Structure formats: C-alpha cells, structure tokens
C-alpha cells in the first residue's frame, strides 16, 4: 500500500474517489476524473482580488443602508422606503418570523459574510500569522449559503414591475448601491476556493 496522507491526497467531496492532489497553478482548475466535481481552483491573484472586492462591497453596503431604497409617488403623496424597512415593515405587521428571515438573508448575513471575508483574507494577503483564522474560515464558508443578496436584487426588479401600474416608483441611490454590493460580493467569493483557502489558513496559523 502506497503512502497516503493529507499532504499528497484528497478525496472527492461528491463521490469519495481518492485522488493525488495535482499541483494547480494560478488560473487553473482541477476536477474529479470520475464525477467532474471541481476539487480546487486558483483564480489569478485570488486573495488580493477577493479583498479588494470585499472592501468595495463594504462601501456600497454602507451607502445602501444610509440612503432611500425606493420612493413611491402617488398623487402628491410620497412614501420613502429604506433597505432595513423591507424587514421592519413586516415586523410591524405582526409577522416576526418572516421579518427575521428577511433581515438575516438581505442584511445581517451579508454583513457578517463581508466581515469574515475581510478578517480572513487580510492576514493572508499581508503574509501575517493570526490565531483566529480557522474560526473565521469556518464561519465564512458556513455563511456562504445563506446570504441571498442576488436573489433580493431580482425580487426588487419583480416588485418594480408589479407596482409600475399602480404608482410611480423612484429608484433611490441605495437601490443602485445594493446592486453594486451584490456584484462585488459575488466577485469577492469567486476568488475563494475551499481547498486553497484552508491550505493558506493552515500555513498562516501560529
């Protein structure tokens, strides 16, 4: 039996085929020969890119919280809606569970996700050691599935069409900022491959 260790081998997450990890250069991708699952990929300047997009996403998110999201105008009456109000209004209408789900999916978890990306990637880019990297890494990959920023953008567009017949809707600065936030968050996450991130965390944990 040949020598098999985590240094030389990995298993496919989806079909459990034991595979000798190939050396993956920047811009390359390795997939499982049996089921085609992407084992790992290394985007060019992945970590640097992730960090810059995460910082940009932070700025856009701050803007989208501070300004009007949509404004409804109907015969002289104006109704301004901010981003957090998507959740607060439901809370006021006695549906706390739904309000919490919406708040988590579009505000709280995306903020936490951006925060963990920055906390994780900054030391990796600067070649610094940090004891909290494994904890932050776990949190980041766990949050990944539950932030629904992109879905919310589509939901907003659908709502606009539904309202268009009833009243005039003015798109606020926050609306545009949230779209840019969604794009930056997606771009930031695309630079983070699980295998590569954990390899880097391993090397940077004292």
């Amino acid at each position, binding site marked *: *039996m040949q020598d*098999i*260790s*985590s240094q030389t*081998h*990995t*298993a496919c*997450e*989806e*079909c*459990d*085929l*034991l595979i000798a990890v190939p050396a993956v250069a920047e811009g390359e991708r390795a997939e499982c020969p*049996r*089921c*085609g*699952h992407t084992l790992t990929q290394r985007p060019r300047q992945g970590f640097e890119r992730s960090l810059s997009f995460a910082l940009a996403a932070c700025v856009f998110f701050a803007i989208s919280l501070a300004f009007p999201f*949509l404004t*409804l105008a*109907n015969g002289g*009456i104006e*109704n301004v*809606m901010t981003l957090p*109000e*998507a*959740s607060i*209004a*439901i809370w006021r*209408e006695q*549906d706390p*569970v*739904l309000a919490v*789900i*919406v708040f988590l*999916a*579009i505000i709280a978890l995306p903020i936490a996700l951006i925060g963990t990306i920055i906390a994780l990637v900054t030391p990796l880019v600067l070649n610094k050691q940090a004891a909290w990297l*494994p904890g932050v*890494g*776990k949190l980041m*990959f766990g949050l990944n*599935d539950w932030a*629904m920023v992109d*879905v*919310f953008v*589509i*939901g*907003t567009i*659908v*709502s606009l*069409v*539904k*309202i268009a017949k*009833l*009243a005039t*809707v003015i798109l606020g600065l926050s609306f545009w900022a949230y779209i840019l936030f969604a794009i930056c968050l997606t771009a930031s996450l695309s630079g983070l491959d*699980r*295998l590569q991130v*954990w390899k880097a*965390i*391993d090397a940077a944990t004292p």
Partner: protein
Amino acid sequence: MNYPANTAAARGLALCHVCGHLDKVELHECSRCGGGLHLRKTDSLQRTLALLVTAVILYIPANVLPIMNTVQLGKGEPATILGGVVLLINLGSYPIAAVIFIASVMVPVAKLMALFYLVWNGYRKVPASGIQCTKIYRLTELVGKWSMVDVFVVAILVALIHLTGLLVILPGPAAVAFAGVVVSTILAAHAFDTRLIWDRMKEDND
C-alpha cells in the same frame, strides 16, 4: 459496509465536514480545524427525508393561503402565489409572470421531486448511475435559494406600499410558510450525501 477500493473510505480516510481536510476517521475530530469526521454524513437519508416531508407539509399552506393581502380603500383582496402569476399574465407582464412561475412554482416542486428521487436511489440496491444522480444533486444545490424571490417581493411591497387609508399591502400567512419550504429544502440538500449512491455502484461501471 464495504466501500469500493478506490475510495478514501475504504482506507479509513474521511474529509472533514467543515474544512475538507483528509484525515483518519478514527481521530473523530479533524486535526486541522476540529470539525467532525465521518466516512459519510451521519443518517443522511433519514435526515434528508425528514426535511423533505417538512417541506411538503409547509408547501400546502404556502399555496392554499394568501401570500399577501392588498387593502384598497378599506377593501381587502388576498392573493395566493398562483393568483399572483395569473394577475401578472392579465396585466401583460409575461416575463415577470414567467420569473415568478419558475421561481415559486416549478423550482420548488422540481427540487422536492429531485431530492425524493435521490433519497430513493440511496435506498435502492441498484441505484441509477452515480454521475446522473450527482448532476441532479448539483442542480438542486444551485437553484435552492432562488425560490426566495417571491418572499422578497412581498417584503418590498409591504414596506413600500403604505398609503394609509388608500392602499396598504399586508403579508399573508403563505409568505412565512413558503420561506419555510425554501429553508427546509436547502437543509435537505445539505443533509444528502451523494457518495452513498457511488458506494452502491459496481466499480467496473464507474
């Protein structure tokens, strides 16, 4: 259980659930991040099935009860998910009607059916091809969160349309039930282990 010889499990090696590190399963805890080590996700089929049944049960109120209630000049007009699609068709907004129909009706049903099919294959003595099941699984993971679109549309309409006395939109009980369907199917997809299907395949027809 005998695992096929080309798998990591056959050598007593498991991927950490959290960080994907390949480790000896008898350690029980990952030597890199402390996450759990199991050859296969524990009670995968039972858990997936339980979450699917939950989703099916929630799916009934999600479609029968109104998702929102439009109150115009004191007169309420509740609308179900399908009612909303019909309304959009009557308004002539065909692309948006298609988005809502696909995201809120087709995707959840297709996803439930796909996951039931996968669980059934997990129990069968001779399952369908591993590659086919793995592809179906990847699709269910990919589309999972997009069904939340309708819930976000409700959130935005409730927050934005609040012209007291003239026109108010209130969330209906179906909204939270539908969010529950989405969350439980995402959890069901997480609980499912595609490797169980590969384990039952003969090695010579990999």
